[in-house]
């Protein structure tokens, strides 16, 4: 294996997954996300609009709701019962809605697209 090949492979391996946020007003931003962090943390770090995250990631406030893009929902998966209970206190909940604090960033989610709502209850 040449040095170039090895470097390229290593760079690809170290490359951070990317997440695309589509804000309610149509603003589209693609940002890098740290493996093991959450989609909510990624949104806050990048000043994505429409994510409040009042409780800071405890799955206790439902103010970090996102609508996962339909193409991605199967890979992200459905909410747990605990999360579903919090979704009961959110608004405009769809089949593909999740709390972004409960979506962990993994390599499989590289390229993920989520939509942020216009209102998180405050």
């Amino acid at each position: 294996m040449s040095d170039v090949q090895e470097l390229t492979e290593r760079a690809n391996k170290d490359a951070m997954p990317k997440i695309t946020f589509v804000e309610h007003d149509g603003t589209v931003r693609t940002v890098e996300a740290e493996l093991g962090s959450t989609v909510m943390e990624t949104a806050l770090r990048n000043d994505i609009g429409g994510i409040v995250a009042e409780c800071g990631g405890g799955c206790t406030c439902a103010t970090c709701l996102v609508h996962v893009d339909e193409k991605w929902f199967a890979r992200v998966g459905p909410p747990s019962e605990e999360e579903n209970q919090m979704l009961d206190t959110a608004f405009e909940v769809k089949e593909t809605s999740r709390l972004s604090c409960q979506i962990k960033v993994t390599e499989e989610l590289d390229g993920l697209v989520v939509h942020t709502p216009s209102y998180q209850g405050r």
Partner: protein
Amino acid sequence: MNEVIKTDVLIIGAGPVGLFAVFELGLLDVKAHLVDILGKVGGQCAELYPEKPIYDIPGLPVVTGQGLTDALMEQIHPFKPTFHLGEMVTTVEKIGDPLFRVKTDAGKTFEVKCVVIAAGGGSFQPKRPPIQGIEPYEDKSVFYAVRKMEDFRGKRLIVVGGGDSALDWTLNLQPLAKRLTLVHRRDEFRGAPDSVNKMRALVAAGEMDLKIGQVTGLEGSGGELAAAAVKTKDAVERVECDAMLPFFGLTMKLGPVADWGIKMEDELIPVDTATFETNIPGLFAIGDINTYAGKLKLILCGFHEASLMSQKAYHYVYPDKKLVFQYTTSSTSLQKKLGVA
């Protein structure tokens, strides 16, 4: 009734930081009353995550929100603070040097030397559903709380939500209402199983309606509801109603703090980090609601802030006395205050 309550310090917010401020002030013989909009102490700890573990309280490897609240209540017990729960401070007015007149929405008036704002993210208030044009109906035919059940007698009601508040009010109001419809986004309820069973029995007996869906629109005029649009899986249904009660839990809003003449930055209160005083002498801000260089929204930082705030507050309460710093480990006088010596 409208007697003025006079004490040394009024603490706004009975979360962990407000509670610990009672302890730090108490060691310095400064008496405190606390006001909190919630009906219980503990703030976010008790309301948002009573069962969730906290791992960064010094000396406590793990403690739940409720556990920390209970421990703080035990710790401040010797100082016998007075709590005014379920009340919101509406106005804070400076009337002396320093002396403040503070009023609550329950009609109480306080006169205190110092005010300590320990209000965290603000006051907990009901989440308002984002239904277009809901505002004119609020407090006329859309209510986020039930004050008098009798007001709903003989009316067609829609209750929205799947938790205990929605279920409890469904069960309490169903016998009075002309017709009651419960609307929830899914056919599973997080309320107490007994309440869920009772509700399902009423539905099975045809005594009330249950619709799985979300309210998307309102119809009516002059603040009086006529009907609500309920979007179910397959259709949008029109449900006639005289009143709607949405129960989507609580969210934190800054509330009236912004109107008290305090200098603010992005809904936070800048403070002097030596005293945690705001731009108004005698008015302090500690915990999540303040901001300064390096600020971290951690309970442990709020505890530190409470201790330094207390040193300055002491001088306002006892302007002629000299404060001698003492340790609880060695000071008999402090131990007497704590009831252990």
